[in-house]
């Protein structure tokens, strides 16, 4: 890799990682990584899935010990035995996967481990309120964390870091679950704090975000630093090439393949919240046609998850009908069927949370191929499993979808997120589905894998597959969809044309700023 221009100096180096090496069984996560972060900057770290970013940050935060290498904070060499040491040195970290306890309150989550700072009484409450104000956290301190949405959880994480008086804040993929407005709000906060002298290390796959917020960017590939650049002068395309050594893919749909044959007809669907008659979904009607990608936009928590799970039969609709039409035009009422029957009728399902809904983490890859298809060839014959068939078909998916794995006998947990996702996509496109329900199909997946997944969806669509796409990534949504519907508070409120709509317009429709335009 050519070494691009070094970024202009900004103040003293506050973090210096040099020669960091970390090995895990079977993998070298970091090898001889060097990273220098200067005071008051936002320093982005980019890299593919599994490049070793999180590992590096965990080392800086004292959660893991490097096998080799040294860490200096503010010019002084340090040896962190645990996060407590790091916190004392002024390092705070917001983790890629939230580090929150659902059954504790917001206050408890923040105070945990930092009770000495302001006690657990009034002083603590007051400090908490100040920080909540600063980060825009609206939740009451005594609400249980499980009630909060993702954006608020993110805020709680940031409050946690600030509460501990961190001056160096690590944000590990903080934007993966946020909508544009929320990302903007986050960035505002970051910029404001940057002015107050905080230093940020910011990890993201989204290159435009990196370009928007970072002062410096360091790229990591396969565990080593590839180089450091100034994001203001480097293009996204160049950055991506540094990361993966290939072209930046784009989600743009080429020519339209929409036919006039209906595949999924949903009408007047209604879902009630558990144990009450409050509607979570109401008056949901739409149709997806063969060869069409119908995108659903919406801020998380507005019913997209529930919609998908209702169509899949994992939740029971209170009223309304769901019909699937096969290639010969025979409509089949799915409303009363169970999940398995719906899958057998030809629905493929990429769930939004792959570890919870798509994978058996401790089971080998070939067993994961069986999940959801246990009644159908090639993975089963009658009541018996066809293990040879399942293995062969898993090999096929690994090949066709470029799943990077040492073999098909490793447990799914041993794959990185992106590779897990490729496996899931491969599985759900097996067995000739007529409809694919794809929830956040590329969430947390690196650009290479993302391109591959998009390509596979497009290919299937060209063959006549109908796709219901849910995504928080508005570029993806606009690029892939033939039609976009916006979901707000359990209703489909408006429609947008992906050819003309901008992410900003879509974002304001999603937040209800333009409800009146719909319906």
């Amino acid at each position, binding site marked *: 890799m050519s070494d691009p221009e070094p970024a202009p100096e900004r103040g003293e180096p506050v973090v210096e990682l040099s020669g960091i090496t970390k090995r895990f*069984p079977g993998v*070298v996560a970091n090898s001889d990584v060097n990273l220098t972060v200067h005071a008051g900057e936002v320093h982005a770290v980019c890299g593919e899935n599994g490049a070793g970013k999180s590992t590096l940050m965990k080392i800086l935060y004292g959660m893991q010990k490097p096998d080799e290498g040294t860490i200096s904070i503010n010019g002084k060499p340090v040896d962190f035995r645990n996060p407590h040491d790091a916190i004392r040195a002024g390092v705070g970290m917001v983790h890629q996967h939230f580090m929150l306890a659902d059954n504790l309150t917001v206050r408890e989550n923040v105070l945990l481990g930092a009770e000495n700072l302001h006690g657990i009484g009034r002083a603590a409450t007051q400090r908490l309120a100040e920080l909540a104000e600063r980060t825009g956290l609206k939740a009451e301190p005594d609400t249980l964390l499980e009630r909060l949405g993702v954006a608020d959880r993110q805020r709680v994480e940031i409050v946690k870091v600030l509460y501990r008086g961190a001056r160096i804040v690590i944000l590990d993929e903080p934007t993966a679950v946020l909508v544009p407005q929320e990302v903007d709000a986050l960035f505002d906060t970051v910029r404001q704090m940057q002015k107050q002298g905080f230093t940020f290390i910011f990890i993201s796959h989204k290159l435009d975000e990196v370009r928007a917020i970072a002062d410096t960017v360091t790229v990591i590939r396969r565990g080593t630093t590839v180089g450091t650049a100034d994001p203001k002068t480097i293009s996204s395309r160049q950055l991506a090439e540094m990361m993966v050594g290939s072209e930046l893919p784009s989600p743009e749909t080429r020519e339209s393949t929409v036919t006039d044959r209906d595949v999924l007809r949903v009408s007047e669907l209604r879902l009630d919240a558990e144990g009450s008659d409050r509607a979570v979904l109401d008056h949901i009607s739409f149709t997806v046609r063969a060869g069409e990608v119908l995108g659903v936009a919406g801020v998380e928590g507005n019913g997209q998850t529930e919609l998908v799970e209702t169509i899949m039969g994992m939740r029971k609709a209170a009223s309304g009908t769901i019909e699937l039409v096969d290639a010969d035009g025979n409509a089949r009422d799915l409303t009363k069927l169970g999940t*398995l029957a719906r899958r057998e009728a030809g629905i493929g399902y990429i769930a939004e949370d792959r570890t919870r809904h798509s994978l058996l*983490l401790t*089971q080998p890859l070939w067993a994961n191929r069986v999940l959801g298809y246990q009644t159908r060839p090639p993975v089963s014959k009658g009541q018996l499993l066809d*293990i040879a068939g399942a293995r062969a078909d898993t090999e096929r998916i690994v090949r066709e979808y470029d799943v990077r794995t040492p073999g098909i006998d490793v447990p799914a947990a041993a794959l990185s997120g992106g590779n897990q996702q490729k496996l899931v996509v491969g599985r759900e496109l097996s067995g000739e589905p007529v409809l694919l329900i794809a929830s956040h199909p590329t969430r947390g997946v690196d650009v290479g894998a993302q391109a591959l997944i998009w390509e596979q969806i497009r290919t299937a669509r060209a063959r006549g597959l109908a796709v219901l796409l849910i995504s928080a990534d508005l570029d993806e949504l606009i690029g892939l969809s033939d039609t976009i519907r916006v979901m707000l508070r359990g209703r489909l409120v408006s429609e947008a044309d992906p050819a003309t709509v901008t992410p900003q317009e879509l974002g304001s429709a999603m937040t209800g700023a333009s409800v009146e335009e719909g319906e």
Partner: protein
Amino acid sequence: MSTWRAKLLPPLLAIAFAVLISSVALLISGADPLNAFGTMLSQLFAGTTAVDTVNLASTYYLAGLAVAIGFQMNLFNIGVEGQYRFAGVIAAIVGGAFVLPPVIHAVFIIVVGALAGALYAAIPAILKVTRGVSEVISTIMLNSIVIGIVAYLIDDEQFGEQIGNNVATKEIQPSGLIPGIPLGAAGTMFGFVLIAAVVGAAYWFMLNRTRFGFELKASGESTTAAAAGGVNSKKMTLIAMLLSGAVAGLVALPELLGRDHVYAITATTGYGFTGIAVALLGRNHPAGIALGALLWAFLDKAAVSLEQIQVPKEIATIMQGTIVLSVVVAYEIVRRADLAAEQRRVGRALAGNGKRSSVSEGGAV
């Protein structure tokens, strides 16, 4: 190879450690450990002890399988204890009430036992599925309640009859019994040992080769993923619990049909709890459970011979506890050693294949 090492070393380490701990206890109480262990081993080959051990192990094996089925679904069926006793008394009553042609009679009793076990397991299963009652509580309660039910059924005003000072069900006629396998002076092995082996094989096949077994494991591992994959976890809970109960229903039968022919108030209790230990020792694997059952039965039998040389037989209980703990600790230690070795090997070959052990325990990933 490392897999063999990972499988066999831990139990050996554990037994060595347990022997060490017990030796200390023996020395404190003034006994000679060598003599004690020598007696335990030599008695195994004296008289019918070896065969008795296998017979007892068949009972433990069934109990272990019953518990393991529940564990596959993350159900903690402490209730095997209650289920086998309920099934035992029902099978004895029903079996003693009729005379059917040979074989048919025995098969009939076995079916009744399995059904009765499943029936008693249906209570916690239904409570769990419809009302969300924790199976741990309900089975703990049902384990006690079964004592009352057995006492009620066995009472001579109901189905029992008094023999001397004992009370037992009516004797099952020879047509209902399962003939033993005579081994000369070594004793008679229960015919049920073979049936237990068949049940074990069926368990393995069910788990690894059938769609049902897959669904069972899937919902045991992740109810959410299973649900998205079209597996109804409530249904699986119900079926797993009933199956577990049905196997539990067989636990009393080796002794009932092979030796006792009646179910008496002096019938042995506690097999269900032993089953938990045995299942865990065998890591829910049918062959592992078999080894666990044999080891456990051996220790039980050895305890009896210890008394012959005036050694406190609590030593056997202490050894059982120590073995259970040290087997699992040893597995963990060996696993960690393997992992570290793997880590060192990484530099050379990158595509390591030793990852499996780390995650196969459902550990933090």
